[in-house]
């Protein structure tokens, strides 16, 4: 048989079966809503060089340690007498000038790990550096609130550890319509309809069916609720811009989703850092400004906090290839409308007091930021999700 003939005959490809019936899977889950606050988390993947992003331009050590890659005064957007932003961050500076940005320096954790994967895991699971957790902090948030998968959405094809809980998982979506179409295959409807085991969650088969029903219900929810017309803004034509556009669309469409996760890759600048980083920061800042304006236009920005982090910063001393190697503590951006503390949140890094590997020491544990968002923004018991208590910051 030729493939095309076969394709035609296959019920999976053509839909020979009938009876589309939607299973109301969510009715069994108590739908707790904890307000309509939203958090958008952005990871600059690969380890963004914080020192060339938020630049301490009065610091002699900075210029001594970075003979060929230090950012010169005329290329800095000054925020104060001693610190400024990379010149490609002008769109971010615009947000900064409106009081929408808080810059938190020296964020990290004890005994920093310099592997991308491990350090990303640490940030995503909110673990100690010698602790291996099997679930992410957003996943545990879903567990705790007994939420549907669509409460936390990653704009990607596969789900990161951050959104995986013990019993609940978030959802990875790039194209809700497409996912919905996949799941509307009559075959899947029939499969679900004919499964009638009462002990749905007690064994692995029940677990699989539940996952299927969850996926189907979530796809339907997102696809029906979101309307592309809710984002008319023009985003930069790159993957990151597209991701933020999708998120803006979901937020403007008033999805109940509370946590969104997106990422921009390529920050692992061991060689020829200046051009690469400049290009990526431009992508980041341009998209971010469009995103914030888009939300504002739709009266949605009041309820949104955007957190931008990187799994680690980079070494203070540059290497011989016009680049920087893996480092430790780094800068975090918090973007929002009603920030309690705008501008620079804390002191600039102390370049004269580095750890044994020549990296910045942390001053703010990243989990204090999570705790602050959970406690003050999402209004939930942060210690139940982070497995211990952290002090709260004052940016919200």
């Amino acid at each position, binding site marked *: 048989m030729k493939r095309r003939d*076969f394709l035609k005959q*296959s019920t*999976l490809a053509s839909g020979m079966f009938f009876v589309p019936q939607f299973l109301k899977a969510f009715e069994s889950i108590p739908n707790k809503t904890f307000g309509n606050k939203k958090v958008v988390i952005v990871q600059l993947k690969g380890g963004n060089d914080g020192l060339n992003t938020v630049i301490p331009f009065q610091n002699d050590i900075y210029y001594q340690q970075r003979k060929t890659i230090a950012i010169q005064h005329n290329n800095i957007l000054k925020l104060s007498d001693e610190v400024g932003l990379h010149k490609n961050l002008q769109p971010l500076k615009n947000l900064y000038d409106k009081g929408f940005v808080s810059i938190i320096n020296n964020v990290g954790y004890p005994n920093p790990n310099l592997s991308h994967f*491990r350090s*990303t895991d640490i940030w995503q699971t909110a673990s100690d550096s010698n602790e291996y957790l*099997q679930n992410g902090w957003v996943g545990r948030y879903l567990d705790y609130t007994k939420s549907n998968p669509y409460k936390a959405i990653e704009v990607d*094809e596969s789900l990161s550890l951050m959104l995986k809980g013990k019993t609940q998982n978030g959802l990875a979506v790039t194209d809700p319509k497409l996912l919905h179409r996949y799941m509307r295959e009559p075959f899947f409807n029939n499969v679900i309809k004919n499964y009638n085991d009462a002990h749905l969650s007690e064994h692995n088969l029940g677990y699989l*069916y539940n996952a*299927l029903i969850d996926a189907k219900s979530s796809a339907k929810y997102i696809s029906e609720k979101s309307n592309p017309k809710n984002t008319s803004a023009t985003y930069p034509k790159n993957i990151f811009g597209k991701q933020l556009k999708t998120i803006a669309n979901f937020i403007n469409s008033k999805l109940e989703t509370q946590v969104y996760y997106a990422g921009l890759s390529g920050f692992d600048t061991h060689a020829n850092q200046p051009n690469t980083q400049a290009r990526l920061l431009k992508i980041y800042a341009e998209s971010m400004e469009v995103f914030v304006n888009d939300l504002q236009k739709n009266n949605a920005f009041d309820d949104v906090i955007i957190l931008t982090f990187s799994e680690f910063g980079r070494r203070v001393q540059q290497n011989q290839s016009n680049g920087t190697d893996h480092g430790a503590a780094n800068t975090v951006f918090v973007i929002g409308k009603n920030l309690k503390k705008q501008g620079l949140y804390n002191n600039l890094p102390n370049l004269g007091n580095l750890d044994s590997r020549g990296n910045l020491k942390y001053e703010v544990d990243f989990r204090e930021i999570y705790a602050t968002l959970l406690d003050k923004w999402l209004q939930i018991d942060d210690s139940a999700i982070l497995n211990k208590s952290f002090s709260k910051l004052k940016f919200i």
Partner: protein
Amino acid sequence: MKLAHIQHLYNRIGFGITPKELKHLSKKPQKQVVNSIFENSKTTTPVTVDLSFLKEYKVTDFKKKEIRQAIQKKSRKKVKEFGIAWFNRLKNPSEVLREKMTLFWANHFVCQSNNILFIQNYNNVLRKNALGSFREFTKIVSKEAAMLGYLNNKQNKKKSPNENFARELMELFTLGQGHYTEKDITESARAFTGYNHNFRGKFVLKNRHHDEGEKTFLGKNGNFNGDNIIDIILEQKQCATFICEKVYRYFVNDTINKKHIDEMTEVFYKDYNIENLMRTVFLSKWFYDEKNIGAKIKSPTEFLVGINTVVPYKMLREKQLLLLQKLLGQMLMNPPNVAGWKTGRNWIDSNTIVTRLRLASVLLNNAQITYSDKGDEEADISDFKSKKLRRKTFIKMEANWETFKRNYKNTSKKELIQLLVTPKLSVETEAMLLKNKQMPLQDFCVQLMSLPEYQLC
């Protein structure tokens, strides 16, 4: 031996079984079937890729940055190639149990490296020792170049100890959390100081970095080296229990039965012989208990390879295999971290379930799949601009339906259900599937593979 039991056994020691083999084995008693499995895995056939490009280089070349970078780039490419070669081996294994055990150990002694020479060697160390002595195995692993790099033991020196390897050795490789103290970690790290390897990946002990002093470890005192530490760990019965539990979860059931574990531990603790342990499991009565049959969620690799047992397929663009592995959550050459892949229900979320249920039509029926090509954290980003935003693609496949037709000639649809789907289908589901009497057996097969039930083995 009962058909259902042979199927169960082959689901666990391999990736399913063809009807012909099944029929052949059904005439034999259980003991003989199990014996033949071990007999077939007596030998070891390494997986290799062509490494001739390395011959051109000398140690001194590594000092030159440009040459070094060129080698590294080539090496990363070769690692991908190796991942494909490994997968192809799994699809056509001559030593089935050995290959399955290699997969098991790859998620136990977890390691990752971009150095093709080191990681190829490491992978074949897993293969070679998969059914041997756990004692020797652990000692060899501790000296492998890939592992020395992965867990930073190369940086473990008398003057500045690095505890990474020592910690994971106990936490993940031998004892499990809570069976040692932080002091035991510090002390054992000293025993592994000076471990290193040469340019070709051969182990060397750098005496000047090795700590010759006395160490106190798990209640013992002495000038221990790394091998001594491993011997002392293995004296703990907990080590045998820890490994047996892991084997049980992988080969029998996610839920531990303490009685069965005790039985296994008694056998394993005697001499840490892996083959004896596995033989005990496959010959036990409880291995064939109803509640163990069809109880496990297939790993992405078991799932992908299992389809191939029924309908052999070939990827026309071999790199697309990596894409599938990524979407399903198990890129063989890229374990998530030293704790390895989280198995069982962790394989499944809303995304992977959809990908899995659609996969048979994607692979065998030319359905479309979407993905973003963003590269990973360490990817070369020089071609960032040229990458398209989001792609839709067809997995270019050649499904060998001729083999399927030959293997399942005269097989009724009801029989095909028995052969492919391990858990019992509900009456309604079976009726739904059988409703369309005109449907060809191939299409019927694709449907069976699209059932949640097919995810279990």
